């Protein structure tokens, strides 16, 4: 396959038109001793039939489970067909960042709609246009709140491990070692948090619900953090926001999270989308793209990329972040997903996740040895003990086309982190639980 349309004759004519005799005349600046000797050591061109054949075979080596009880940062939700059809339109897919606003209103307006939806979901005032994923959103938020006199970063041990690792990488690179607050019964240890907070603290990062699926005592946390003059960053599961108290209601200073549940497939981990929203006062601290509404000379409503004085192409080494892409197509996908579901629809998804998870939890914990590892309110994920070796148990579930919960070691004990969404039926839950019973 080749995607170069110019014929060999045209290439000759073009060279001739420039007064050149051969292509080599254009590459004289590249020294001979750094040239590739002959051809690159990779296979040659293939036809579409061959490429498809190879890659279909590769995809076929992956196991797609009919039933899934695994979350832990990536969630299988239903994606209405209309989402893929609209977000897949080539005009959106093949466009660049909307630098030329006049010919990019079709990209800019959906970003503005996206920002509005994130504000509606989180209750916050201002959203950016999106960042790489939920973990980098948390890391960017931490960096956003660090100041000259407030550099200390505190993170709860109950956040998703990958988010914690990402925050560690970003903070360490910038010269700060985050302080980790231990967990107590699966939730942030409030006493330990109170001890760690001081007048050098920039911010505290927590998740609601946390990694174990538990709803944290966020109001007490918010009060503690604010009493120390620090900022509260709350990592959220966007679907849960339809029913759970929002970061804004807790008084959080930033709401961030992984927007993959809003219409993006599991896709082995990406592309996903990170969302970031703050209070008006912190607007100019936000990293990344932001779309704004204005007018043109004729008074027509127009959308532009705005507040760009924050960004790398203007501020260079003084910018707080180098991020310049906003996962625009993922943001568009989330926007269309939220519109397709609407306020009733998203609430219904959240209600079903919550109801089915509680039914599953009741059934699972009725099996001997599968007790809740931690007590407390949860949304759609929960951790239970696992009385048997998790590996053969999960293999047994896999034989039945079920991806079981995630096996994790907690305080030296085997446990399973279960996740239930609207995609799981009562019959699936019952079948899965019957296999657990058999495996005792």
């Amino acid at each position, binding site marked *: 396959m080749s*995607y170069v349309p110019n014929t060999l004759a045209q290439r000759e004519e073009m060279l001739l038109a420039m007064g050149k005799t051969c292509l080599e*005349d254009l*590459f004289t600046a*590249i*020294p001979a001793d*750094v*040239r590739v000797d002959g*051809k*690159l050591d*990779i296979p040659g061109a*293939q036809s*579409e039939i061959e490429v498809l054949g190879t890659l*279909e075979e590769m995809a*076929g*080596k*992956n196991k797609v489970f009919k039933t899934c009880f*695994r979350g*832990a*940062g990536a969630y299988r939700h239903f994606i209405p067909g209309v989402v893929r059809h*609209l977000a897949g339109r*080539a005009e959106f*897919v*093949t*466009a660049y960042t909307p630098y030329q*606003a006049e*010919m990019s*209103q079709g*990209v800019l*307006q959906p970003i503005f*709609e996206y920002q*509005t*939806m994130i504000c*509606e979901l989180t209750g916050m005032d*201002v959203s950016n246009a999106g960042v790489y*994923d939920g973990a980098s959103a948390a890391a960017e938020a931490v960096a956003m709140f660090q100041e000259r006199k407030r550099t200390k970063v505190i993170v709860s041990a109950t956040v998703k491990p990958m988010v914690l690792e990402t925050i560690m990488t970003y903070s360490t690179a910038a010269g700060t070692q985050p302080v980790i607050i231990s967990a107590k019964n699966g939730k942030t240890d409030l006493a330990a948090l109170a001890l760690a907070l001081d007048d050098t603290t920039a911010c505290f990062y927590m998740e609601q619900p946390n990694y174990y699926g538990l709803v944290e005592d966020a109001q007490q946390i918010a009060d503690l953090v604010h009493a120390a003059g620090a900022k509260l960053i709350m990592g959220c599961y966007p679907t849960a926001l339809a029913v759970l108290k929002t970061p804004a209601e807790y008084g959080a200073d930033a709401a961030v999270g992984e927007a993959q549940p809003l219409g993006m497939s599991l*896709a*082995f*981990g*990406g*592309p*996903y989308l990170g969302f970031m929203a703050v209070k008006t006062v912190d607007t100019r601290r936000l990293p990344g793209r932001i779309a*704004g*509404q*204005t*007018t*043109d000379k004729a008074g*027509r*409503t*127009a959308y532009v990329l705005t507040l760009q004085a924050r960004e790398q192409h203007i*501020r260079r*080494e003084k910018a707080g972040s*180098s*991020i*310049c892409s906003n996962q625009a*197509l993922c943001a568009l996908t989330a926007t269309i997903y939220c519109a*397709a579901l*609407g306020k009733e629809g998203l*609430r219904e998804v959240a209600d079903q996740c919550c*109801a089915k998870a509680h039914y599953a939890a009741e059934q699972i914990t009725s099996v001997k040895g599968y007790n809740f590892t931690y007590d407390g309110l949860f949304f759609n994920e929960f951790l239970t003990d696992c009385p048997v070796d998790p590996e053969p148990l999960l293999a047994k579930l896999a034989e039945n086309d079920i*991806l079981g919960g995630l096996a994790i070691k907690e305080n030296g004990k085997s446990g399973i982190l279960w996740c239930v969404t609207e995609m799981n039926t009562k019959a699936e839950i019952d079948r899965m639980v019957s296999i657990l019973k058999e495996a005792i």
Partner: protein
Amino acid sequence: MSMLIFEISKPGRRCSTLPKCDVDFVAVPEEFKRNIPMNLPEVAEIDLVRHYTNLSRNAFGVDNGFYPLGSCTMKYNPKINEDVAALKGFTAVHPLQPEETVQGSLEAMHVLGDRLCKITGMDAITLQPAAGAHGEFTGLSMIKAYQLDKGETQRNKLIVPDSAHGTNPASAVMAGFTVVNIPSTPEGTVDIDALKKAVGDDTAALMLTNPNTVGLFEKDIVKIAEIVHNAGGLLYYDGANLNAVMGITRPGDMGFDVTHLNLHKTFSTPHGGGGPGSGPVACKAILAPFLPAPVVTFNNGAYTFAKPAKSIGRVRSFYGNFLVYIRALTYIMSIGAEGIREAAENAVLNANYMMEMLKDSYDVPFGGPCMHEFVLSIERLKKQTGISAADIAKGLVDKGIHPPTMYFPLIVPEALMLEPTETESRETLDNAIRAFKEVYAMAFDNPQALRDAPLTTPVGRPDETTAVRNPILSYTVNN
């Protein structure tokens, strides 16, 4: 401009619905319950479809027309890439599935990683970074960890030429470096004397794009590498411009120690209106222990994840933008070794052809053959006519062409930067050359028309000052 999705909302209207819940409802306790409205739009499916279909008509992609946006490599995005990225075996797998159930994904990562190493002349790779700037942060963090590991704690300076992409210095600061900017020569390349003066025992690395941002190959690259290496520094290659030289020369052979790649530029994955992209980082063996975790390895007939010994950690969740790099793999398999080189040659040919045909009207500040892109300066035209680079750009919009990159690189006043890419035909280039010349003539004949441009778009030039002074960043829903 069309109404917002919120403005076409009608209470009670529904689109997608779920089956009836087959278990009992569970109420969230009052203390933890949402008590503020959530005003998402309420629309029927047909409203939704028309709204976004009509918006798509106000977007402009490579599929719509010529997109010579310098530094962005807006090449054609093959459709087979989309088909492969939509295979259920790739889209429906959970990232935390057991390794034995995702051997296809791991194989794809391994094969792609191997080919990208061969294309760049590097030894090891991570596919985790989500974009070029993310790759920069990753690669620079690896350099920092490497220097610290050697006990060279004083090496905290990163040298960056003044022609560099803005992300370079911004990423350097994120990775904890102090930036030392060095000026370019009047010819647009690295000033060797300035570099010699800048390096020292505090030098961590030099960050360079080659060809550089004015479209010129740094012909003294071997000497540059020697100067930096002799001072104990490393060389970072900003892969944004790799499309000019892939298959002809390799960053690894030029002396670079680490590079990020922009798969959404060089390897044909679509830009999506601003992402998702993919910014893998490839490096020499000395930096491999510092790569983000996990990396894919192949042992005893199976692919598996591994953590490099001195890994800098993660830069995001999971393994990167998987479906994006699946597209890049499809592209590399399709065009093969010979196609990689053919793409670079034709990208350079097309750029030189346009530059040559435009230089009797527009000023070309840097002489000699260019690589895959070139810069025009509107400075003299502006003095003569008052017409700016932005005016020229807006005039081109009315001709159905996406304008070049404006006002970059910063070292050229009133810059327009053109990168036609290899996937455009001579006919397309000739039409564009004509349009550029017509717009140039308008600067003298009818400058007001250019100042009023564009007229063919749904809106004219937006008032950006008001947008900044009085930011309206979301719609206030009054339901």
